[in-house]
């Protein structure tokens, strides 16, 4: 098979090394968490992707997972979905330890989950309507007109028109793909929604629209939402809770507390300021041929 997971001899002790945690940074999972990781290790191929991760995600809240490339953000979501199994450790999702479950036993756990993939993962041979209706057709005994009404309601909720249901995935814009993927993830009203890089490849306006959509869905349906993101500004606007994955440790807590962390890496990750180097580069671009910041602003407006 494609990936192989094997026990690692390279187990690390829990990870508050180097820098002191701030007062409200959490390092573990609590009983109230909807999802809890206890000393989870994951290896993909020969590479250790997640080392001794212990964290928790509060119920009914929006948690954003931040971290550099290759820090294991998407892997964390795939672990929760049971798409990959941990090498060791305990992973509790909605009260069930899924770390050693067979695919058949994962079915009732997955019924509580909805996942929005980075590229949408929509079936490209069927239209938007059939993509969203698929879980209802497969797992419920709803009649076709009930399914139609449910799907149309969901399309409206994510800001799409009913006529968009007739389009094929290849006919959609990037923002529309994300919306359809979100609609498919929430159509069965799961307890937990996992969103992998929902803002990647989107312009700032569409990013804000998707952000508002998350907020609205979280508020209306009370779903626990886990969002993997690179976008610090969006993260700070959206998150009730943050998990930051770094090579040697992970930190979690409320965003306003983590912003004041003494760890420069955390500050950097959460920084929305423009770097000095970037300003210099910007000036160079502005004086030479090509586009400058003004051009970009006019493009967005």
């Amino acid at each position, binding site marked *: *098979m*494609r990936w192989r997971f094997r026990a690692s001899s390279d187990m690390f002790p829990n990870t508050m090394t180097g820098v002191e945690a701030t007062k409200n940074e959490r390092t573990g999972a609590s009983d109230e968490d909807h999802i809890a990781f206890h000393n989870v290790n994951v290896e993909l191929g020969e590479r250790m992707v997640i080392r001794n991760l212990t964290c928790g995600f509060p119920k009914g809240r929006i948690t954003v997972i931040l971290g550099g490339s290759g820090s294991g953000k998407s892997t964390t979501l*795939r672990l929760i*979905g*049971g*798409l990959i199994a941990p090498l060791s450790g305990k992973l509790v999702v909605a009260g069930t330890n899924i770390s050693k479950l067979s*695919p058949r036993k*994962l*079915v009732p756990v*997955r*019924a509580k*989950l*909805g*996942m929005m*993939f*980075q*590229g949408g*993962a*929509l*079936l*490209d041979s069927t239209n938007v309507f059939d993509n969203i209706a*698929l*879980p209802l057709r*497969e*797992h419920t005994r709803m009649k076709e007109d009930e399914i139609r009404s449910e799907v149309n309601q969901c399309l409206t909720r994510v800001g799409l028109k009913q006529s968009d249901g007739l389009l094929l995935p290849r006919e959609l814009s990037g923002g529309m793909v994300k919306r359809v993927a979100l609609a*498919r993830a929430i159509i*069965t009203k799961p307890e937990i929604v996992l969103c992998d890089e929902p803002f990647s490849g989107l312009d700032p306006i569409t990013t804000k629209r998707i952000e508002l959509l998350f907020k609205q869905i979280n508020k209306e349906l009370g779903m626990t939402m886990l969002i993997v993101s690179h976008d610090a500004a969006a993260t700070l606007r959206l998150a009730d809770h943050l998990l930051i994955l770094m090579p040697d440790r992970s930190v979690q807590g409320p965003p306003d507390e983590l912003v004041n962390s003494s760890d420069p890496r955390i500050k950097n990750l959460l920084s929305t300021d423009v770097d000095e180097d970037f300003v210099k580069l910007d000036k160079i671009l502005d004086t030479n041929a090509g586009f400058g910041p003004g051009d970009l602003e006019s493009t967005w407006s």
Partner: protein
Amino acid sequence: MVLRAIDNLGAATIRFIESLGAISLFGGAVIGNTLRPPLRTRMLIKELYKQGVQSLSIIGISGLAVGMVIGLQGYNTLVRYGSENQLGVFVGFSIVLELGPVLTALLLTGRAGSATTAEIGTMVATEQLDGLRMMSINPVNLVVVPRALGLFLVTPLLTALFVVLALFGGYLIGVGMMGVDPGAYMGNLQEAMDFPTDVVGCFVKAFIFGCLISLISTFRGVTCAPNSAGVSAATTATVVQASLCILIADYIITALWGF
């Protein structure tokens, strides 16, 4: 040097047995899911159209061309011995016993088998199969079974078409161009062919080749690496492995069936 060679041989043997085990488990899962409801009729019909109807022209033209070549070669050979009236038997045996099922299967591997692998492989690369798993939908049931069943069913049907058109091609050359007696062509062919051995044997081969093509092409698709290079490698592997398996199976069936 010798130790390394033994080491490599051992590793290759283990890999071979591992993949044999994996494909057997996959085959079991496909059969299990085929027998389990729901029967996805709409998807199956779509696959029959894609793999069968859209392959009609390539199979038809190839059948006709092969029949014409066999007719021409056969006539040139038989006329030396004054046995040109046996052309129907020559063309019939060549096509029904060997060339019909084997060439149809090879053409279908290149046309529909590789397309099936590429399609499923692309679904793997774009996380569509993971998306299904997250919705607790078994990808084998929804994606693999309709495609595998479609390939399995169209192989004997297309083999029948190939055989008929190849016999017609041989007739066209023998009777139409070379002046062989039409009664002798058809009469000798009818007399020489034994239905339970020859014609049924032809379809037994076609069914077995259909099994091989559907199993290999879907397995390679599902297990391909999730990137464009992986899809390309899986497609190539399907064509190479399915073609070799068809040729080896052809020999085994011929030996066992007693043609």
